[in-house]
């Protein structure tokens, strides 16, 4: 669905919207303070891996927050949303008390609203473009909280609104991977009438939503509900299926697939290549979080346990590092420490995640960088050596460059280290397609407008194109790819 200015104007001029606007004066709307998301107390939540920190808004809170939105004539917030949610419309439905309509509005362009309401960095996207921020220097309308509220309301109501789909056109398309880019693509393609199959290498659908994000931020049940909606729309799912191994692209073409969307993610962990990094007890955040999130390693009766530590250091300053360090606390660490080579101001993690981590007792050892690890006689890490860092001139990222301070080395006792310094794209698909252009980073080269790769019937998006995207950017890729694959397939037929 394309949200043209004309369409938005037409919708805004509908009677119910105009009536709602006239009901409360803008100056009164501006007097309302931004709602605060209710949270589970840190001392309680830190005991549970699967209890959500953010508890969601009460209906009255949501309605009050929705009233803050002034239903702008030029809703810049939409420009900040990679999947183009009709933000004022869904918020005004909440103000009006028609929450199911709000949820239906979200689903017009977003296949995973309950997910996005929880994990999107709205403060950098839609909320950053809100009128309150742009013009009034005030806190934005809590768009993310409201999105979550509407999606949760629908899920809890037992009424699931399944978006309309076009008449099936019988054309088979495949998507590789089942993370947010794939699911978004699948949702849009099935709406266009395609026969969509999602191929997932693991035993669970959801990709990074399941293996990468802990349940205290995104419960698996929330993801499952959204997946069920896609199933009801007609999307098919194949698990334990590795495209490129279980069958090749040629095999799938022979089975009648006409278009492919590759969203196989960035599942290759990176390490720092420093001495001692191969000792037992030092693992990647991928392994750590996958074992806990997807393989039940936090439970006592698991066949696939994960090493637990009392003194846990997590290397890195992104959301994955925050997820890992908070998981370590929940798994019983006495000390869970973030070791980051820049200062807190330069951390890529969401401010909310840093705040939650601090509330829970995570220690932040900023301006420190590991140099070497030492092990006990059994080869298990027992200590690490670190350097203190200063900040030099700004580097290419615009942040001040970390510089080692001579003679500042010190040691720290640790018995578990989780390395969360980024991931690389999954190399499997590029490695089995010699004609597929990839960058030196291992990401697939696409036309940025169309998401089309060097192989015409192959489109790509998400981490395999961006290297490591946010959920919502990946979903935006999926939508863009769907729109353009649809055009491509219509034209060749």
């Amino acid at each position, binding site marked *: 669905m394309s949200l043209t200015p004309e369409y938005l104007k037409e919708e805004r001029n509908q009677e119910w919207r105009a009536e709602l606007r006239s009901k409360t004066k803008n100056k009164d709307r501006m007097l309302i303070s931004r709602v605060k998301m209710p949270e589970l107390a840190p001392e309680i939540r830190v005991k549970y891996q699967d209890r959500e920190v953010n508890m969601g808004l009460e209906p009255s809170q949501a309605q009050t927050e929705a009233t803050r939105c002034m239903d702008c004539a030029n809703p810049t917030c939409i420009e900040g949303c990679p999947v183009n949610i009709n933000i004022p419309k869904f918020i005004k439905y909440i103000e009006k008390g028609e929450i199911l309509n709000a949820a239906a509005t979200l689903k017009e362009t977003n296949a995973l609203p309950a997910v996005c309401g929880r994990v999107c960095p709205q403060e950098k996207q839609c909320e950053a473009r809100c009128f309150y921020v742009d013009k009034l220097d005030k806190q934005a309308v809590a768009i993310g909280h409201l999105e979550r509220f509407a999606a949760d309301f629908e899920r809890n109501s037992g009424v699931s609104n399944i978006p309309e789909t076009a008449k099936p056109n019988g054309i088979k398309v495949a998507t590789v991977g089942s993370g947010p880019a794939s699911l978004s693509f699948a949702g849009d393609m099935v709406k266009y009438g395609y026969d969509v199959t999602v191929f997932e290498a693991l035993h669970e659908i959801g990709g990074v939503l399941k293996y990468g994000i802990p349940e205290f931020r995104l419960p698996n049940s929330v993801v499952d509900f959204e997946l069920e909606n896609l199933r009801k729309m007609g999307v098919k799912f194949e698990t334990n299926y590795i495209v490129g191994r279980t069958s090749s692209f040629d095999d799938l073409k022979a089975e009648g697939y006409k278009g492919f969307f590759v969203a196989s993610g960035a599942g290759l962990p990176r390490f720092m290549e*420093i001495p001692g990094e191969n000792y037992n007890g030092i693992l990647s955040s991928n392994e750590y979080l996958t074992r806990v999130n997807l393989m039940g390693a936090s439970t006592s009766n698991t066949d696939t346990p994960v090493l637990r530590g009392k003194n846990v250091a997590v290397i*890195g300053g992104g959301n994955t590092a925050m997820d890992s360090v908070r998981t370590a606390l929940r798994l019983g660490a006495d000390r869970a420490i973030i070791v980051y080579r820049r200062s807190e101001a330069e951390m890529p993690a969401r401010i909310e995640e840093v705040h939650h981590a601090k509330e829970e007792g995570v220690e932040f050892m900023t301006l420190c960088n590991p140099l070497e690890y030492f092990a006990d006689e059994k080869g298990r890490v027992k200590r690490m050596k670190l350097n203190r860092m200063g900040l030099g001139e700004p580097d290419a*990222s615009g942040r001040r460059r970390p510089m080692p301070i001579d003679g500042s080395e010190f040691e720290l006792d640790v018995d578990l280290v989780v390395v969360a310094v980024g991931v690389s794209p999954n190399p499997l698909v590029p490695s089995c397609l010699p004609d597929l252009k990839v960058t030196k980073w291992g990401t697939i080269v696409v036309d940025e407008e169309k998401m089309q790769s060097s192989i015409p019937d192959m489109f790509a998006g998400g981490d395999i194109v961006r290297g*490591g995207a946010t959920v919502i950017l990946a979903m935006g890729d999926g939508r863009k790819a769907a729109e353009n694959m649809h055009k491509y397939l219509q034209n060749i037929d």
Partner: protein
Amino acid sequence: MTNLNVKYLGLDLKNPIIAGSCGLTNSIENLKAIEEAGAGAVILKSIFEEEIYLEFAHEFSKLGPMDNNLEFLDYYDYQIKKDNLKRYLSLIQEAKKELSIPVIASINCVTAHEWGFFAKKVEDAGADAIELNMFILPSNLSQTSQDNESMYFDIVSRIASKIKIPISLKISSYFSNLGGVIRDLSFTEIKGLVLFNKFYSPDVDINQQKIVGSDVLSHNNDYKLSLRWIGMMANRVNSDLSASTGIHDWQTVVKMLLVGATTVQVVSALYQDGFPVLTDMIQNLEKWMQENGYTSIADFKGKLSMDNSTNPAEFERVQFMRTFEEYK
């Protein structure tokens, strides 16, 4: 018969002329051509910490769809470093397979810790020796000269503790007591000292009134600082001395050997005249030796060093004063 063999860092070289570390010693094709031109040894291009940051900046500048993705890029310099080091180790392995002359790896050091770890990998990849290129401009105002010197001894000691292959150390002349530092460094674990490395020098464009870069390559008159210090330190140190910067022709090679260098390192001339300049240097060195009745390098190496000189003052400033007095 004229014998050009020398022993440098304990390695047998068929002649004292080494292709120094530079961009040209970064590919197997060039390395083979350098061997064919007759070089006694080759020093691979240095891996610079600074280069890794520049590449990081370059990658950042062409992000495209990867913008807004700091988490992916936050530690990307480590990835670049890993890729560079991997390529470097492959180059060493391939060079060792393809060349019969000694292959010396070069590491640019600012910090000792991780480069020590890397030095071990360089050794495992088969390098015959490692040249540590201490490319440090002592411009930190809060550091004393003692701090600056200590850094060198610290890095040498740490890297030497990790490897068994010989180490040479390439230094600048920026020390408050250069002679003492050269002597003391020669008594550490290193087997050779390279005098001196050439820094990028700023210049001023007076028309645009801004700082610009000056010549990257040396000139054929730039060898005199090295000549002086090799001449002054020969026989007073516990390591080989290798001359670097300004070695553009066979005459300069002969001069350096006469004042006490064990080897010379040629770089800028390779860029300006191509690899045949090495052949020319070797042939003319041999011819000069024959004309002067020398059968081996040892016959004349260090003959004009300060230690062997009947007039040591020739290497010192008094000579400079005397020269100017003549103009009165």
